């Protein structure tokens, strides 16, 4: 439909203006644009589908209610990322345990499966490594974990991470450094 096409091309700023004017359709479009990014970010943080779903919903609902406070002209994604990361960090702090992906993650394709001729032993090692790494990431303090996820998974720059988390760039650098050091130690023991 033409209209939908029109909405697709609309900028975030324009959609935000529409939402402020009471257009829920504009908000639906914003959700559709960022839902995957926010979901996967949340999933990597909380390691559980149901919790990640809750985070996504909470984040967008909060964003909707706070939309009138959002300054037009600023990018939307650092804002929605910040809301989502803060919710994730609260979840992690509250539970005081690192939530692991449920068994469904086992459906994830093993690394070696892509190449049937690859060395099975090596593949097993890779899978084992990956498990260790994920466990190590889960065990990181939420603040470090947030920086690492935003950098390694979301590929945000230090500048963007500092905006999302509202921390200085130097802090981003040091947290990331510490997180990687910790992961390295874990992997070296393998």
């Amino acid at each position: 439909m033409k209209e939908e096409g029109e909405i697709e091309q609309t900028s975030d700023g324009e959609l935000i203006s529409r939402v402020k004017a009471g257009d829920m359709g504009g908000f639906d479009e914003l959700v559709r644009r960022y839902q995957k990014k926010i979901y996967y970010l949340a999933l990597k943080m909380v390691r559980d589908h149901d919790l990640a779903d809750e985070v996504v919903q909470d984040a967008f609902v909060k964003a909707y209610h706070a939309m009138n406070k959002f300054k037009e002209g600023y990018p939307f994604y650092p804002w929605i990322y910040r809301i989502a990361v803060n919710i994730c960090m609260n979840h992690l702090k509250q539970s005081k345990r690192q939530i692991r992906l449920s068994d469904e993650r086992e459906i994830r394709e093993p690394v070696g499966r892509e190449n049937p001729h690859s060395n099975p032993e090596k593949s097993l090692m890779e899978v084992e490594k990956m498990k260790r790494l994920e466990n190590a990431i889960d065990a990181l303090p939420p603040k470090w974990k947030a920086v690492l996820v935003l950098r390694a998974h979301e590929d945000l720059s230090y500048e963007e991470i500092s905006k999302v988390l509202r921390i200085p760039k130097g802090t981003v650098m040091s947290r990331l450094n510490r997180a990687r050091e910790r992961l390295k130690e874990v992997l070296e023991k393998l």
Partner: protein
Amino acid sequence: MFHKQVKNFLSAYLDGELDEKRRRLVEEHLKGCQECSEELNTLKALDQLARSSKVPEPGEEYWKTLSGRIRSRIILEEEEGRLSRLKNILVQSPGRLKLISTFAVVILVLLVGRQFLNEERGTERLREAELPLTLLSPKEESSVPTFREKEATDLETGELLKEDLAALKDRLSGLPKEAPPVTALEEKKVSESGVEGLLQEDQIAFGDKTSEPLKEAPPVPILEEKEVSEIETEEPLQEEFLAQDIPSEPPPSKAKVAETGEGVAIYSDEADERPRRRVAAKLKPAPRRYIKILSLSDVENFELALSQQSRGDYEDAIKNYYQVIEQNEKLAPSAQFQINLIQSATRDTAMDEKTLRRKAELWRSFVETYQESELIPDAYRYFADNAYELSKLTQKKEDINQAITVNEMYIKFLRESRTAEIYNRRRIVLERDLNRLK
């Protein structure tokens, strides 16, 4: 020292986040430091491993329904806010509560005062008559409680049946005067049961659960006919009697009483049913209305349904919403709105013709039933959206016409806004579709 500093910069170097000067320093150091080179390689491997980590895909259906679920939650929270405001008005608004309390106290004082006065008047008259109960026959003695009933009836109606009492006095005037009068204790019992009954009703009405309930009647529901009758008579009444309709004929007149014969025969079983029924008729409706105004059960029920809805217990939520609709006219539009939301957005996200038609019908019914509701604009939005989707799917003339009509109705609520622009554009699209069909 420099080696340690470089080690700390390796992570940022890997991410390309170092400024030019530092980047050069690190690169220079890496050429001659095996340890730092290995460290960098490890970090690269770690980074690659982290990036290659895959997570399960929730499925296309999840992405399709997510925005709908988020929208439902937003509406739900807005509804909860509205409900909370309603609750505040009912319960927490000190001004209103004070007003209601003052009004209730005034009513209570008036009722108690009136009863007290009537009791005094009744006692006085009885003493004047010096009713010789002890001289009554066993059958006649059995009519003593009936006398109490009659007095209580008169107290409740607010008007002592002066004619009846006068007739009684006249008829008994010939009896010996030595007989003891009706004991004060018995009279007190009658009046207390009436007053306490009222007090209890008021306590319930104000949600006061700290007071002890009466023995004669369970605290809730106090206003059943049976309980009312028990308070009045202290004798359990037959259910058949209670089940009878309240007769519409007037209370026994003086003339009718006179016809009934001698002595206390006027208080025969047949005769005393009428006052008892009148008591039930008088007491029953008023306190029920009283409780209805202040009762929070509907609000609580609505809240329960909302929480069930947010948890995804849609069947239970719908059941409770229907209960609210039956019990509370004020909350009925909100409850029906939530039912529609569940049935049209949250639970059923299918977009086939049958579903869309059903959804459009749901909202059409809502806007027709609750024309005065403040939710009408929202309902029209859902109606318009569903009608639009339906028309785009079927491309049938009647569906397009419906979509145009509803779209126009919704636009009326929008005034000048970006949303209005969208729906105006939609109208143009619909009219174009219609013209094409023609």
